C-alpha cells in the first residue's frame, strides 16, 4: 500500500475529487494547508507572500493503482497546457499497515 499526498490549488480540488470518483478511487481525505515552494512563495513588488493557501489530498491505494492516481491528479490539477508554478506537488510514501475500524479487519 502507498500513501499519496497531493498538495494542489484549492480551486482544483473539486475537479480532482470528481475525476478520482469516476476513476474508481472514492476514498480521499482533504485538509487545508499553507506553504511555500521552490520559488520562495510569491513576490509582488517588495512584498513576499510565503504562506500560500493550498489543499492537501491524502489517498491510500494499492501499489498497482499508484500510477493511475498520480496521472489523474497531474492531468486535472495542472493549469493551462504546460502548467504553472504553484500547481502543486505529489508525495508518495509506503504504508506499513492498515485497519478498518468498523470491522477491525486488517488491509485496505
Amino acid at each position: 500500500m502507498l500513501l499519496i499526498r497531493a498538495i494542489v490549488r484549492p480551486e482544483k480540488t473539486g475537479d480532482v475529487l470528481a475525476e478520482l470518483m469516476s476513476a474508481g478511487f472514492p476514498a480521499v481525505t482533504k485538509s487545508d494547508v499553507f506553504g511555500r515552494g521552490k520559488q520562495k512563495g510569491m513576490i509582488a513588488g517588495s512584498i513576499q507572500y510565503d504562506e500560500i493557501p493550498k489543499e492537501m489530498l491524502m489517498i491510500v491505494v494499492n501499489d498497482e493503482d499508484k500510477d493511475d492516481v498520480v496521472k489523474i491528479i497531474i492531468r486535472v490539477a495542472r493549469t493551462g497546457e504546460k502548467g504553472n508554478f504553484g500547481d502543486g506537488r505529489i508525495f508518495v510514501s509506503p504504508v506499513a499497515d492498515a485497519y478498518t475500524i468498523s470491522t477491525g479487519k486488517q488491509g485496505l
Partner: protein
Amino acid sequence: MKEVMAFIRVNKVNVTKKALAEAGFPSFTCRRVLGRGKKMVDASVFQAVLDHGELPVSHVGEAITEVQRLIPKRFFTIVVEDDCVQKAVETIIRVNQTGNAGDGKIFIFDIYETYQVRTGESTL
C-alpha cells in the same frame, strides 16, 4: 518507531483521547479534515426511487445523500515504539467501533528518526 494515523468520527475525539492516555499514549496530534470513503451509489437505489416515486427512509436514503460529499472527520497522529503499535491500534478500534460504515481507518507508517526540539535529542 511507527506512526499510527487514525481517521475517526468527530464525536469520538474525547473518548479516544481518554482511552489513549489510559493505555499509555498521552501524546498525540489531532487535525480537522474532510473526507469520503468507499461508499458508492448503489444502482438499486435509483431503481427503488423510480419504482416508488420517493426516497426510501432508511440507510439507503442516507447512502444516496452521503455519497460524493465530504464528511468532517478528525485525524489523529501518534508516534509509538514498534512493540506498542498493536496496543495503540486495539485501543483506537475498541473505543471507535460502532460497526457502521464511516467509523474510519487506521494507517501505520515507519518513522526513521525523531527529535525533541527542546533538547535536540534523538529520542521519542
